[in-house]
């Protein structure tokens, strides 16, 4: 049982305000991912929980008990460092045994525990090697093993697979997920890679500029981004964002994006009124929300295909509506070459509306 709670955490580095009033509860056995661009305060928050960084104010609670005054050694929280931080002068066995020996664990217990962790991580054959002789992936396995060997209350991971190559990252991601299933320790994982975040997290915490932007399941933050930052940070390729004006035309709500305009269901007008939306609106639509057709159909607008990026299973096509470009996702090869004229509409169910000035989502969801 380990629940981590952050209450009104504040932290400055000199004049820089790195953590701004962060409040969060990580439930027992939950896998939470802090996601954000570099310098957003996610690693600092993680280090503060571990006790490697002091906070200016606020409370960090582990199972309801404040721990911000305790030394890292007394918090019973394990930490996996981005650069592994293996002890270079020890063998893999000694590295894994260190957290146990440091508290005077009996020799046979150390031996047994190290071997069982080594087995579950597949590094038994490396126990006598020194870290300098290991590959990046194996070093990471040892670093994770060193964190798991003591059965900590909580496990914190700071971009643990960030420096591995793409293929190995994928393997390690799956391995991390398996380890979490097996051990079930409360985990907080920091990354700037949204794919990693989406695939690992029970809940994602999106951070920017020291502020929590949104906390939710991967699906929630993908489908219902709380603001423009989250909308653009999550999802690849990035969501299309365009300043828009909404008016009534032909019994529909017409949204105008510079030269292009699209018709959406009339109910949008009522919703905007109800939300007392500011006149400066931004429309957000993911590439898969831009529906492309080769034939002109009612409600579709003509566009010129521009750059086509094939991804194998699908293509990403830049569509030019006059000066305005929207990025669309099509089945692969659907638009055969740049310059072709195609027709497109916006899927109302996938249209997001944001207040341009505050960036906040208006929370409007349209049916089909």
């Amino acid at each position, binding site marked *: 049982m380990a629940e981590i709670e952050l209450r009104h955490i504040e932290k400055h580095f000199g004049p820089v305000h790195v953590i701004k009033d962060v409040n969060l509860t990580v439930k027992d056995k939950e896998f939470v991912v802090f996601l954000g661009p570099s310098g957003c305060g996610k690693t600092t928050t993680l280090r503060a929980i571990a*006790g*490697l960084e002091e906070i200016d104010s606020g409370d960090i609670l582990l199972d309801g008990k404040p721990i911000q005054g305790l030394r*890292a050694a007394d918090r*019973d929280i*394990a930490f996996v460092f981005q650069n592994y931080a293996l*002890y270079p002068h020890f063998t893999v066995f000694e590295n894994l045994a*260190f957290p146990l020996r*440091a508290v005077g664990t009996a020799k046979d217990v150390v031996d047994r525990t190290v071997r069982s962790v080594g087995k579950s991580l597949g590094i038994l054959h490396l126990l006598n090697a020194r870290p300098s002789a290991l590959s990046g992936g194996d070093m990471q396995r040892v670093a994770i093993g060193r964190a798991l060997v003591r059965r900590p209350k909580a496990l914190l991971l700071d971009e643990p697979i960030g420096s591995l190559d793409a293929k190995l990252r994928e393997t390690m991601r799956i391995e991390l997920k398996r380890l979490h299933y097996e051990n079930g320790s409360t985990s907080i994982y920091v990354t700037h890679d949204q794919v990693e975040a989406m695939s690992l997290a029970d809940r994602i915490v999106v951070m920017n500029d020291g502020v929590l932007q949104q906390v939710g399941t991967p699906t929630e933050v993908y489908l219902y981004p709380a603001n423009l930052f989250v909308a653009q940070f999550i999802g690849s390729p990035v969501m299309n964002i365009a300043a828009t004006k909404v008016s009534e035309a032909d019994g529909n709500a017409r949204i105008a994006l510079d030269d292009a305009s699209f018709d959406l269901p009339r109910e949008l007008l009522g919703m905007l009124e109800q939300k007392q939306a500011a006149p400066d609106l931004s429309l957000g639509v993911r590439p898969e929300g831009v529906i492309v057709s080769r034939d002109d159909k009612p409600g579709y607008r003509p566009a010129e295909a521009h750059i086509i990026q094939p991804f194998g299973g699908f293509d990403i096509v830049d569509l030019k509506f006059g000066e305005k470009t929207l990025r669309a996702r099509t089945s692969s090869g659907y638009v055969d070459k740049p310059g072709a004229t195609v027709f497109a509409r916006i899927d109302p169910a996938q249209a997001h509306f944001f207040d341009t000035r505050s960036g906040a989502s208006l929370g409007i969801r349209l049916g089909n």
Partner: protein
Amino acid sequence: MITTLDPHSRAAYRGWSDITIRNLFVIPTILFLIVFNIFPLLYSLGYSFTDFRASTKDPVNFVGLRNYMELLSDPNIWSNFTITAQYVIVSVSGQVIVGFGLALLLNRSFPLKGLITTLLLLPMMLSMAVVGLFWKLLYDPNFGIINYSLGLGKLEWLGDPNIALYAVALTDIWMWSPFVMLLSLAGLSAVPKHLYEAASIDRASRLYTFFRITLPLVAPILLIAIIFRTMEAFKTFDLAYVMSGQPTTEVVSIRLYKMAFQEWQTGKSCALAYIVLIMVLCITNVYVKYLNKAKER
């Protein structure tokens, strides 16, 4: 754009190959070493097998290993070596303890760190003879500040044969601890900070961290400091010579000096010098073995 050189310097460039230029730099140094180091070294090796006396014009006779046999069976020489060993052990271990301790204290950021470090380094920049002379004044039983401030009355630091050697060693410690400190400081600052963070996460106490992380990682550079200081202490001369005339402070270098330039037993003193050289080489070899072992990790 190609820079045009006049034909003369172009020829000069072409004429001087890399090898020529390299030789121009290296050969003078090598010549210097041969004339002033290697030649005297070999020449004195030759002398060590003779009864040569630089003070007389007597014919020089080859005596084989007699000088070495006499020296090694002379109990007085062994007592010189014992004194030297005591001196080396006391002074080097003192320097390591004080120097490493200072380095641990300095290995963090605090105001005026640079200034304080520089001030601490001053002793080793002084001349040995000068240090010896003013410590003699500090130790003086009548007006020395050490007895005065410690309230030791008329303690004869350098006059008492039982403590004179340790008094000289203390001066050496004062003078050379900064050297150990400097090297240790370099070693300590080279230990990555994240290892300390990892150790604190791994629940290691400060003491455990010191013995399991800090010490093993600093050991190689600390060993280098110990090698240097042992070699220096083994052949120490100036301090003991300037500070004390006690027979209990007659380290082997002083004996060597007396043998060569007071008793004019040139051949025999060369033999003694070679014995010292071989001993120093043996001791450093032991250290170097340890060093290599420590580096393998």
